[in-house]
């Protein structure tokens, strides 16, 4: 078991290096860079000399290998450099926005899991009945409705029916829990629906699969109550793949937030990312990509470890 954990942790390293290499060089092949965007933003004519000076200041004129090596050293020492746009430390830019985004992500996850497990289970147990059809329509709709549009519709409804808009400035939970809740519940719902739909569909299909297993027939042949057949024999097996999806989708929520934050005018990391891409702010983009990829990989690891806890075949394998 210990070697398993150590191995899984070690396996993360090449993937992270791959992400870093890919991100870094993909960004560097972009025609044009932040300097032109930045200087032209102020309007007026820009001389080649000005551009060169700015490039030098940002270190963009050094050989790629040197830039990459610098960044790598920075990553390992948790020194992510300065934003090329604002000039503030990247870590700081991200840190001030992370709290908001993480809170939305966690709230959306809670909504998703609370909805998904009962919905998926019901849908599976009543397969091909009206209950199943209704739940399937609900979940497919969850996949179909774009979260940013859902957000717009939520805002529109709040506006039309309550003549109220969620505030734009973020109120942290510890300052005013209620204000915080009323502000963030809407974006959480907007992304949570899709999340719950994905998980519910997985729960449904894995319960359907598990209910066909021989050991379910064995349990019934022993005279086990049907309720117990589902709760004890089916659920424990069916939830394993569901855990994977919950984990993966959590990591991907960061992606979903990219557009949703835009709609709700929330200043989170999703919005920061869009801004950074628009401005070709290399240091910021690459660090954020690394952050997101790391979250993904770590969540993946956590899921695998959780698997080991639930599945004796891995625990004692």
């Amino acid at each position, binding site marked *: 078991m210990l070697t398993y954990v150590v191995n899984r942790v070690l396996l993360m390293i090449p993937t992270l290096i791959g992400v870093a290499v890919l991100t870094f060089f993909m960004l560097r092949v972009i025609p044009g860079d932040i300097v032109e965007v930045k200087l032209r933003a102020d309007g007026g004519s820009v001389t080649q000399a000005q551009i060169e000076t700015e490039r030098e200041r940002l270190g963009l004129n050094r050989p790629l290998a040197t830039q990459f090596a610098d960044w790598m050293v920075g990553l390992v020492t948790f020194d992510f450099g300065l934003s090329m746009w604002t000039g503030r430390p990247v870590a700081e830019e991200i840190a001030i926005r992370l709290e908001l985004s993480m809170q939305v992500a966690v709230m959306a996850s809670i909504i998703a899991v609370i909805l998904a497990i009962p919905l998926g289970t019901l849908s599976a147990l009543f397969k091909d009945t009206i209950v199943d059809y209704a739940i*399937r329509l609900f979940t497919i709709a969850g996949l179909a409705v*774009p979260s940013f549009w859902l957000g*717009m519709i939520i805002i529109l409804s709040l506006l*039309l029916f309550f003549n109220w808009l969620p505030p734009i400035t973020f109120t942290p939970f510890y300052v005013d829990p209620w204000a915080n809740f009323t502000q963030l519940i809407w974006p959480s719902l907007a992304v949570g629906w899709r999340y719950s739909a994905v998980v519910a569909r997985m729960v449904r299909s894995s319960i359907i699969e598990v209910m066909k297993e021989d050991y379910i027939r064995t349990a019934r042949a022993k005279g086990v109550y049907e309720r117990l057949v589902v709760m004890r024999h089916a659920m424990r097996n069916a939830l394993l793949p569901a855990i994977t999806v919950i984990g993966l989708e959590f990591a991907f929520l960061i992606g979903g937030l990219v557009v949703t934050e835009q709609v709700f005018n929330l200043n989170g990391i999703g919005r920061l990312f869009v801004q950074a891409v628009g401005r*070709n702010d290399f240091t910021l983009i690459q660090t954020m990509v690394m952050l997101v990829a790391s979250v*993904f990989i770590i969540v993946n690891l956590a899921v695998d470890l959780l698997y080991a806890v639930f599945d004796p075949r891995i625990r004692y394998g």
Partner: protein
Amino acid sequence: MATTPTALRPYKLPKRRHWAVSFALRQPLGAAGLLVILVMAFGGIFAEFVAPYDPLDIDFGAMLAAPSIEHPFGTDAFGRDILSRVIYGARTALTIGFLSSFIGCTLGAAIGIASAFFGGRTDMIVQRFIDVLLSFPIIVLALVVVAMIGRAPLFGIDLNLILAIAIPIMPKVERVVRAAALSIREMAYIDAARAAGFSNARIIFRHMAPNVAAPYLIMLTAYIAQAILLEASLSFLGLGVTEPTAAWGLMLSGNASDFYREAPWMILFPGLAISAAVFAFNLFGDSLRDWLDPKLKA
């Protein structure tokens, strides 16, 4: 015994039907999805004939007009007819959706089969690369690709956008196809082909590829839905389709949200169009899977 019993408990019998009819009857939701897809495809292809106005016609006399007989979906801030823009938007969405899903799925399937067939070190290296790609959330990868390639219009479609959507789809398809191909590789008929001295190319194309056709088709449909959604998101962020082309995501971006109160139809209809399209493809894809799966096992 063995006589025909007189009083068998009765039940209804299914009849034998044409496969299309049996699909429609056994997968009514999927058939409904297919119908919506066909209607949208028709509208998109024949937009010139179906749409009441030119989607680009600016009419300052009819800015932000509410839905009416002349403009059933109303008009936008430039007085452009929203219904016409939604119809032309179907063309954009379906073209980009289909092309990027097709490229992503085909690339993914090709790499997946090859990786599974050759196995060993090749497989190891390919899979580590796929791991890396999978570590990016789809939209983040798409954004990076958009930033990387820059605009490259091809036949009036933004190639960069199609690639930006296709590339994140590729690794996901690769994983599924690889898993399917790995199980096919263990089949005795592949051993028989090897024992008969067939070339690798023949084994891959003649024996393995046709057997992953079903999951490929299912994913192709499902990822068209994802691609449409992704295109809308990118366009919404201003990084996808650009003005003045009619695209659903684009219609929701920019100043649309400035007119929440004044012109809610501006955000209502394009969003409904996206939802309906994605919904239809998902519905159809799901039913296709349910319908193809038991046949594969039989």
